[in-house]
């Protein structure tokens, strides 16, 4: 549909009334736009089992209407869309419509359902009254029109959103929950390399943002990642050689092979560029090589680096120092990425330290031969950063007596809280506000200051200055020279290193394709879901989960890794605590499996504006929430269900294959139905009658008796309102089937040990005694209430409502379907609860009103 169009009529809501009025107007030759908020039209009727009084299969009579609506030449159906605003414009109306992002291209989708099977996120199925789950990627129901998948995504999950590198944390968790660890490893690689390394040393901002952090404690995302990495490396000790399909004929030089340089090489090699990494030392990895083995095993780091260098279009030049940027250009490199990191300059040390037994921290970590000499010696580590902590803990492991000195307070130390605590717990003495010249009794002093960016390469070039400045695209003043990692920011952490390199790679790619760097957005993700939205979805009652207990090596002071990987079973258990905050986790299983390539996560909501001559509001009704009548135990007692749930259990596309009761799957043999739940009841603010409940109860009773011939069924009522054509006869038929009718509304329900229910009622007609009846399942015939969202599009225009919040008909006797706004009509249950034949008739009246209105307008009156 193009962005702006004109229609004769806008019909809001694609239930039976909306479809009927659309078809009538379409048959008359008017162009109709039908807007439906769900992904399929059909409203409530398509979800029903059979309909009264004919006991026709509801699907059988509504699917032809749905197909006729969709196939009609004069009707355009806009599904998964909501009308946001309707305004008057001269003598017609304009409507603003929002088509929600479904992330599926309907032109390509065939409705095969594979995405649904592959999806790893369960959500409650609103089409089955929350009786069973469905997936985030789903097709509304088997008879859906149009039968296209949609993916429900409320926003980016907070864990994914907060990751600086953009790793889909939620996706990893949802895949792990389903046991899809290899898929998780591959999903990870879509956004970042170095899975193993990050699984050990990442500070896990995702865990801090995890919604469960407010409850028992966050999902142990990093530990889940550990398992994913370890499992993959077990199956694949060496990586496969990788060769991208299209190798581009452009060369990029990357100077420095620390985490930022390696990551940049990875991103660019994946895109197909020919990358050369220049490393001045004899090993790749930069400062990562300094991280002690008890935190990051060397073979893991090596394996991660191999994963990157397995790209055949990456060339590694070790022991090679780049002295001139200009020479790189001459050698044919079209872009250069500086990632030289930081270095330490002994010359900057204070004089007092110019003694024999002072070692600088980084050299200490590099020279492992010196460790033997530490045994039983007093080692002072002077400094407050993570490097200092590493030094202290290495010394402890070599049996030294270690004290950590810092010149200020603990709060000024830049080391992470965990590192400081671990060092202290392992036996290091923490001395705060210490002074360098007052150190006593120190056999060795290890001195740690933050290293500074290594700008040696820039000597003599245009970029020489005290610091390397980059713009928002990680680009220096020289357009073909980019920079990322610690060399631009100073000593930071691995997350910043990788995230800046990802950005730099993105913009180098644009640069090399001569695309304006301003034109494309690096981070185009949906905004994070808000905490109160998540709370609302769960109705403020989150399911309980267990707290994470890490597995740690018992003998902490060994050189082996402290943290242990936990078992697969435990991983899955922890992963089940995930609340799926954002809905779809972007695990991409659907993308991988879709045979039509129809899934596109770059799809965003689209706004349409249309001009229409008339509007018909047919937004339907809402069911009474039986949990408001607490005394019936709906929501507490599993075997008390409401009538819509029962209708679903009886429907052809039912959730279970039989009529069973929820608590234990037993086939019920003694069922009770309670009428007037939520209607004719001032205590729940609905004193009027919902009109259809007596009839649908009689219908369900007959269907249940048909499905369970030996069961007993009792209906507790105040009045039986079988007033329409054929209804009294239907009531008679029900009586003849042996259904028991008791006049006496059930006042209270209690549950016994077998999950059966005791109903308290007064048997008014029999003998007036108060009785308690025991039943194994109870169906609450809930009333139907107004759907107040009908009024939302009317902000400037005032659409009158009646005392019960239905759309008001100004004169029901002479002008049915006419509202308080001229030119806007109402059809079906939006104006008052009615059954299907009355809705169809009312839709006919609305169509006549709309057609008359348009014709009159065109006659110029």
């Amino acid at each position: 549909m193009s962005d702006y169009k004109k229609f004769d009529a806008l019909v809001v809501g694609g239930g039976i009334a909306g479809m009927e009025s659309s078809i009538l107007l379409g048959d008359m030759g008017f162009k109709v736009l039908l807007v439906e908020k769900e992904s399929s039209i059909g409203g409530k009727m398509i979800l029903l089992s059979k309909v009264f009084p004919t006991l026709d299969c509801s699907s059988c009579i509504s699917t032809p209407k749905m197909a006729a609506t969709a196939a009609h030449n004069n009707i355009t159906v806009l599904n998964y869309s909501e009308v946001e605003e309707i305004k008057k414009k001269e003598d017609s109306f304009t409507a603003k419509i929002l088509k929600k992002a479904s992330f599926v291209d309907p032109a390509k989708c065939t409705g095969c359902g594979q995405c649904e099977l592959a999806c790893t996120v369960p959500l409650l199925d609103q089409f089955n009254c929350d009786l069973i789950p469905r997936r985030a990627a789903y097709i509304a129901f088997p008879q859906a029109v149009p039968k296209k998948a949609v993916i429900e995504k409320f926003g980016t999950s907070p864990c994914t959103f907060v990751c600086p590198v953009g790793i889909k944390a939620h996706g990893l968790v949802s895949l792990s929950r389903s046991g899809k660890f290899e898929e998780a490893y591959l999903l990870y690689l879509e956004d970042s390399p170095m899975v193993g390394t990050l699984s050990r040393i990442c500070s896990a901002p995702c865990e801090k943002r995890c919604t469960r952090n407010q409850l028992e404690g966050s999902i142990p995302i990093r530990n889940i990642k550990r398992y994913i990495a370890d499992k993959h490396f077990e199956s694949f000790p060496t990586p496969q050689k990788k060769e991208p399909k299209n190798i581009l004929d452009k060369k990029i030089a990357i100077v420095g092979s620390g985490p930022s340089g390696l990551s940049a090489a990875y991103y660019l090699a994946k895109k197909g560029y020919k990358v050369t990494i220049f490393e001045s030392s004899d090993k790749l990895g930069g400062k990562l090589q300094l991280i002690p083995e008890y935190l990051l095993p060397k073979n893991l780091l090596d394996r991660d680096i191999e994963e990157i260098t397995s790209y055949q279009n990456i060339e590694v030049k070790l022991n090679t120092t780049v002295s001139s940027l200009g020479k790189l250009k001459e050698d044919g490199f079209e872009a250069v990425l500086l990632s030289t990191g930081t270095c330490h300059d002994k010359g900057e040390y204070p004089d007092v330290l110019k003694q024999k037994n002072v070692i600088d921290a980084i050299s200490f970590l590099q020279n492992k031969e010196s460790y033997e000499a530490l045994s039983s010696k007093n080692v002072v580590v002077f400094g407050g950063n993570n490097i200092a902590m590493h030094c202290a803990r290495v010394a402890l492991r070599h049996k030294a007596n270690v004290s950590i000195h810092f010149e200020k307070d603990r709060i000024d130390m830049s080391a992470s809280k965990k590192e400081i605590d671990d060092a202290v717990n392992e036996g290091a003495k923490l001395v705060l506000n210490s002074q360098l010249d007052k150190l006593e009794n120190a056999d060795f002093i290890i001195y740690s200051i933050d290293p500074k960016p290594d700008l040696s390469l820039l000597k003599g070039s245009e970029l020489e200055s005290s610091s390397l400045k980059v713009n928002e695209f990680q680009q220096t003043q020289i357009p073909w020279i980019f920079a990322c990692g610690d060399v631009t920011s100073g000593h930071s952490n691995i997350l910043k290193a990788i995230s800046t390199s990802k950005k730099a790679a993105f913009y180098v790619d644009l640069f090399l394709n001569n695309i304006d760097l301003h034109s494309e957005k690096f981070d185009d993700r949906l905004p994070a879901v808000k905490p109160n939205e998540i709370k609302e979805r769960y109705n403020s009652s989150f399911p309980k989960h267990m707290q994470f207990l890490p597995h740690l090596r018992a003998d902490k002071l060994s050189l082996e890794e402290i943290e242990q990987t936990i078992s697969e079973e435990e991983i899955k258990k922890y992963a089940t605590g995930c609340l799926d905050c954002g809905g779809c986790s972007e695990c991409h299983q659907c993308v991988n499996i879709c045979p039509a390539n129809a899934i596109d996560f770059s799809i965003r909501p689209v706004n349409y504006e249309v001009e229409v001559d008339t509007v018909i509001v047919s937004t339907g009704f809402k069911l009474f929430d039986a949990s408001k009548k607490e005394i019936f135990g709906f929501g507490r007692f599993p075997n008390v269900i409401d009538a819509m749930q029962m209708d679903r259990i009886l429907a052809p596309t039912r959730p279970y294959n039989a009529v069973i009761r929820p608590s234990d799957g037993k086939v019920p043999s003694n069922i009770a139905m309670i009428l007037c739940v939520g209607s004719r009841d001032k205590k729940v603010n609905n004193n009027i009658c919902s009109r259809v409940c007596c009839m649908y109860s009689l219908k369900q009773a007959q269907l249940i008796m048909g499905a369970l011939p030996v069961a007993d069924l009792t209906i507790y009522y105040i009045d039986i309102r079988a007033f329409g054509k054929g209804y009294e006869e239907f009531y008679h038929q029900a009586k003849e089937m042996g259904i028991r009718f008791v006049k006496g509304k059930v006042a209270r329900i209690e549950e016994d040990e077998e999950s059966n229910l005791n109903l308290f009622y007064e048997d008014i007609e029999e003998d007036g005694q108060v009785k308690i009846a025991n039943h194994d399942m109870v169906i609450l015939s809930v009333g139907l209430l107004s759907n107040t969202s009908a009024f939302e599009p009317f902000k400037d225009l005032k659409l009158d409502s009646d005392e019960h919040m239905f759309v008001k008909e100004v004169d029901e006797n002479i002008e049915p379907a006419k509202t308080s706004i001229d030119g806007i009509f109402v059809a079906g249950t939006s104006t008052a609860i009615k059954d299907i034949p009355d809705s169809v008739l009312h839709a006919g009246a609305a169509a006549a009103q709309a057609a008359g209105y348009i014709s009159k307008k065109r006659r110029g009156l």
Partner: protein
Amino acid sequence: MIKVNSGLIDKIKIDENFNASACFNCGTCSALCPVGFDILPRKLFRYVLLGDEEKILESTDQIFSCLLCRMCEEQCPQEVNITENIRLIRSYLAKSKLGV
């Protein structure tokens, strides 16, 4: 056999608060009554509306056994002021029949 005598209501009714006639006979109140006398409260009100003074007199003990706990009133869908009505009936009985 009960003969309808609609004059009784006027004697009991002091003000509009006596709204026993709003009852539409659903039976919720009787089923919730913890005291457990059949006649409380729906049938009692019905006898009052019908004007069956004899029946009401017979039931004096039960009428005075009502705990006024309001369990019935909490759930009455027609918002009948059950406890107030019981009090008014008691008051009527006390004055006219028990010589109080």
